[in-house]
């Protein structure tokens, strides 16, 4: 995304930093608009009869007619799209074909569950990655650093569902049973009342994003630790711990903000498989279910929701990068 940031920065120069932020947000909105077209086109505006594609060959004429009416398939494509988008923007996400209730009420609780899961995963993974990356940088080329390097390379390669299943095998079923292998969260109780059930899903997501943040944090800290002001702090006689955590760390974090935000955005996709593995009742598991059932309105709504989260976090990544990097900031003024 840095390409976008740099390009937008180049264009935004005359209007300074607020101009850049405004432009980046507008670009995000345009992206979201295009995303909505892709989702709509892929799910509903296919050549041929979308109703038959959804219901299959054995559908009765009656159910076909009902679905056509429900999706406005009897109207021109552009008309369908704009009425879908208009409804969407006013909070009407359509009517589930399977659950026979409005999509909004179907996914309300799932949104809350997933948001909490992502939040926890972020709160655990970001500090952990910053810590591991900093320590690896401090002990550069020593055993801990090598172990971290191999560990992050390995973990980064693993698909989330493999990590998740491995956690289930290790902690939930075969090897030991110290943690719940399935995240059963009753529909009427908030996810924070079931923290034990959340441990393994959070761990799976954490292991998916920690490697990337750790690597960039290590690289950034190595640069900072070799800088003049860190040398200066050491020469002043400050003990190494103060130098590392008080002087080096704040400067080392700045360049990683973008990678952190991008990885939090990555979580929006990561929850799809992880929630499915643990049966966690969030939008990811709901999405997989809707895809299996070909519940088009629910698929549209959830795809839009996940893509929107992803786009918003990407915008945030670019804005944060500009805000925290002095060089880019001054080039805007």
């Amino acid at each position: 995304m840095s390409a976008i940031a740099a390009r937008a920065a180049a264009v935004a120069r005359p209007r300074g930093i607020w101009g850049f932020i405004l432009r980046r947000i507008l670009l995000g909105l345009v992206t979201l608009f295009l995303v909505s077209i892709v989702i709509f086109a892929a799910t509903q505006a296919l050549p041929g009869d979308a109703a038959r594609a959804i219901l299959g060959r054995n559908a009765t004429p009656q159910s076909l007619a009902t679905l056509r009416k429900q999706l406005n398939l009897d109207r021109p494509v552009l008309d369908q799209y704009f009425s879908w988008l208009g409804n969407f923007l006013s909070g009407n996400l359509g009517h589930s074909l399977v659950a026979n209730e409005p999509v909004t009420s179907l996914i309300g609780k799932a949104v809350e569950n997933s948001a909490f899961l992502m939040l926890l995963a972020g709160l655990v993974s970001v500090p952990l990655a910053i810590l591991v990356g900093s320590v690896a940088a401090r002990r550069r080329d020593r055993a801990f650093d090598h172990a971290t390097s191999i560990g992050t390379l390995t973990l980064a390669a693993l698909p989330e569902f493999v990590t998740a299943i491995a956690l289930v095998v290790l902690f939930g079923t075969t090897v030991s049973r110290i943690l719940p292998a399935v995240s059963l969260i009753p529909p009427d109780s908030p996810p924070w009342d079931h923290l034990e059930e959340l441990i393994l899903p959070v761990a799976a997501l954490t292991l998916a994003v920690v490697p990337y943040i750790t690597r960039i944090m290590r690289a950034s800290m190595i640069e900072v630790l070799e800088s003049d002001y860190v040398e200066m702090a050491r020469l002043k006689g400050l003990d190494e711990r103060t130098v590392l955590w008080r002087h080096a760390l704040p400067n080392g974090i700045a360049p990683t903000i973008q990678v952190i935000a991008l990885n939090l955005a990555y979580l929006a996709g990561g929850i799809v498989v992880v929630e499915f593995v643990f049966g966690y009742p969030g939008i990811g598991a709901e999405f997989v279910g809707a895809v299996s059932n070909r519940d088009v309105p629910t698929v549209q709504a959830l795809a839009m929701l996940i893509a929107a989260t992803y786009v918003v976090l990407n915008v945030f990544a670019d804005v944060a990068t500009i805000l925290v990097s002095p060089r880019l900031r001054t080039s805007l003024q």
Partner: protein
Amino acid sequence: MSGAAATAVEAPVAAPARHRPLVVLLRRAWRQPRTKVGVVVVVLLVGTALIGPLVAPHDPAAFVGAPYSHPGSGHLLGTDNLGRDVLSRFLWGGLSILGLAAAATAIGLTLGLTVGLIAAYSRSWLDDALMRTMDVILAFPAIVLALVAIATVGPKLWLLVLAVALTTLPRVARVSRGAAVEVVERDFVQAAEALGVSRVRLLASEVLPNITSTVMVEASLRLTYAVGLIAGLSFLGFGEQPPAADWGLMINENRQGLTVQPWGVVLPVIAIALLTIGTSLIGDGLARASAGIDRGGGE
């Protein structure tokens, strides 16, 4: 310039190496111990997947015992949720993932390279239009894009390949455009242009060889992702359909019996994990080798 500079990899391969940049890259990569480990692991797994069906003791769909039987005579690693031989299903189940992932990567790589090279060479509105389109595809998490496609058409293998290729395309396009943008400005390209060499030939024989190291690194990275994505989608039930033997599907079929008979899950999980680790080790070795070349040939 600022936009291109951010994604651009340093211009690869100086003049002496121009003849066989690929050979130089592979030789350097091979010197890295991690590349050797990666190659050994990948060769072992590809070998298992290819030879497996020939040496499997049972038909992968045959019922040989009670569901979730423990390892014993007749079924070395026990049976699965329906009483089929776990070992045989494992030996049969690698081909589909490998084949689909390789096909998706190849398609995505070809299309991505084409888009990237055209964008880099056109230096016009076409460049912008192509790269903005790539940005829109990148606005979806890969798995969501694949699932949206599956929701409408259903779980078809060709669709799986196309969907994964589609998520590969913009990432390859970006990286290859970034590398090619600097190459098209160089003298030998300008010279070929002046000589009236056709655009297709120019891109294929003058520009492409000069971005091979970037493309090779990207290819191994994309292959790792494709394996993970394809395996993940079959795990979710959108790949090979039962009763086919497929590593991703096996994991899903047998995970209810994890406490009773773990092999039906553990074996394919380990295989997929090793496969992705292996390809990413190769990718890392290639990346290190190519960084060395970019820096002017230092080790």
